């Protein structure tokens, strides 16, 4: 499964949750855009919303069930939820295993 497909899914999830996540309508985000943690716009409520939607979209659009609450998410030096790019990398790994 390519990172490109995962990227599309995650961007589409963020698009869908723009209001809930607090992104302004015309805000342009990239793989470097911070999500959660220092400098990130999401609080824990926003992160949970994003996690739920990403899991469901990965299943619906790529046919793979993943659980983002994986032990590795907590043990990595760099949080997979830090930026859109780290989230793409992390989801890609989980989706490959799924």
């Amino acid at each position, binding site marked *: 499964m390519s990172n490109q497909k995962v990227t599309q899914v995650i961007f589409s999830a963020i698009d869908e949750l723009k*209001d*809930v*996540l*607090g*992104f*302004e309508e015309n*805000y342009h985000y990239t793989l470097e855009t911070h999500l959660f943690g220092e400098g990130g*716009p*999401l*609080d824990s*409520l*926003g992160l*949970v*919303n994003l996690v*739920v*939607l990403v*899991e*469901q979209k990965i*299943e619906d659009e790529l046919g793979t*069930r993943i*659980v983002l*609450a994986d032990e590795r998410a907590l043990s990595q030096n760099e949080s997979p939820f830090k930026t859109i790019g780290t989230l793409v990398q992390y989801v890609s790994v989980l989706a490959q295993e799924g």
Partner: protein
Amino acid sequence: MAAKMTNKINSHSFPPSSRVMLISGTSRGIGKYLAQYYLSRGFKVIGCSRSPSNIENSGYLHFILNVADEPQVQKMLSAIRKTYGRLDYLLNNAAINPKISPVMLTSLVGMQKTFETNFFGTYLLSRESVKLMIPKKFGRIVNFGSMAAYHHVPGESAYTASKAAVLSWTRVFAKEVYSYGITCNVVSPAAIATDLSAQVDPAALKEVLKRNAIPEMGKFEDVSHLVNYLIDDQSHAMTGQTLYLGGV
């Protein structure tokens, strides 16, 4: 750019026929009773247990699984999402009660198995169910405790500790999900005549019941009456609590 989340509580007005409830441990006992009770009220009910169910009702869907098995639980919740597109209520009823034994004779495997079903199953089903509740900003979760967690009966360490874990965990989880319109409480019944309570020595059970204001076995109807209150749309302010039946 701060994330925007409202603390608004949605009181939904769907008729009972479109309400969806998941109950664990529906092959017998309290779980089976609750499944039949809510089916009779018109709810769509999904049940699960390790063994098949003999509930026959067009509104009932049964999954054979281990509630502590993450992929199996995930698969069931995925099926619920695809079939109903929502989940309003979760009753975490599944539990096991190993034979009474003092701690010095309790095996590690026995302790682990008890925690797996009673606690890890509750955590896992709740975690996955909330994913279907969050988008609707409504959910009611009822976990099942026990008077054992209050009376601390010798020989019941595994069951008691696993239920005490459910009580503490519920208080934390309730705080984490309240902003999504979801409540989470514990119903702790007094002993009710089921296969589970039948595993307890009758004389010992009688002794324990004497400690309650109501020193008798409870009824299934007492449980559904309390669950009805907790899952009511208007019960949004009742969360993180343990409610005992039988005057414990």
